[in-house]
């Protein structure tokens, strides 16, 4: 009983430690402290990777690779920036490299959708907004279609779209992480929105026809 309480207390004290303290422990030779750091940041990092890659294995591998790189580069980390932000910039660049490696040009949206996907497109056309929001979470096909839609974007457009919309990063932050000019970020964001809207309109038209 006492052991359990003690272990809970230890667990609590570990989770309560700020990132900077854990980093100091890792740099001091306690590599186990990095496990705590990674489990703390893993959900956010994995979700970020999932926004770029629908294949769960690729997303997991990239998240893993991000933590490995962060571990090996930990001595270069400077505390002026939160650890989460530093880690995120590593993962973003990994995802960008992987997107470019896999797909050098945008992909066409092929009009041959499966039955569940057509059902979802039909629902998005016909259902009330409340029902659309309520249904989307549990429907795998809603996520599959969204990935198909985003797959039509150029890698750099998809980067900007995800970083602005999902991560809510500013133009300046995106420019700094990717090493681009702010003008380039704005242009890519504008083009990404236009292209995405066009493809979405096309999907809605498919849903209306069936």
């Amino acid at each position, binding site marked *: 009983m006492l052991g359990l309480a003690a272990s809970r207390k230890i667990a609590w004290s570990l989770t309560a430690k700020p990132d900077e303290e854990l980093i100091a422990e890792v740099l001091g030779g306690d590599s186990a402290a990095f496990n705590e750091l990674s489990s703390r940041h893993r959900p956010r990092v994995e979700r970020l990777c999932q*926004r770029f890659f629908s294949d769960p294995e690729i997303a997991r591998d990239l998240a893993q690779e991000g933590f490995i790189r962060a571990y090996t580069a930990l001595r270069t980390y400077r505390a002026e920036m939160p650890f989460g932000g530093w880690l995120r910039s590593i993962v973003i660049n990994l995802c960008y490299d992987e997107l470019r490696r896999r797909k050098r040009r945008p992909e066409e949206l*092929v009009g041959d959708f499966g039955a569940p996907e057509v059902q979802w497109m039909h629902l998005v056309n016909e259902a009330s*907004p409340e029902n659309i929001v309520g249904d989307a979470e549990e429907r795998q096909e*809603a996520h599959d279609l*969204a990935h198909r839609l985003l797959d039509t974007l150029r890698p750099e457009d998809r980067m900007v779209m995800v970083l602005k919309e999902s991560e809510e990063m500013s133009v300046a932050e995106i420019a700094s992480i990717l090493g681009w000019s702010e003008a380039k970020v704005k242009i890519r964001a*504008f083009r990404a*929105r236009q292209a995405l809207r066009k493809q979405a309109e096309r*999907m*809605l038209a498919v849903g209306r026809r069936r």
Partner: protein
Amino acid sequence: MNCFEARQEFPALWRKTATPERSAEVYSHLKGCAKCDHAFRVFALSAPVLHSAVEPERNAAEFRRRVAYRAQRGLSVTRPAREPRRLLAMCAGMMVLFAASTAAYLSVAAPIGSYTDEITNSDSGYEFPVDTAPTSNDFAG
């Protein structure tokens, strides 16, 4: 609530982080505004990836099986856009084959771009906005 305010709330609506009162206001606006209603439906197609907090648990093996199945049936999720070089070769071939017979036709017919051309070049000539604020603004109907 005006159209701009309603569209600003789309991400919060999707993430279910908007207050019940705010959500009700947005839903009520959507009921009475066809343009915003359409903009919401456009938004909803990419929102599961861009705005959902989680993705349904995917089994990697199951995912690969489905991708393989689609590929077998020719139902690829997406396929690479035609390479520019292949496109050029096709154009050159067509020109050689039909040069004589189409010369007259081409001189009067309006050029028709491919779908890929349309999505990649649609913005040319457009003046870029100074601020590239959230997408929901741009999902205008």
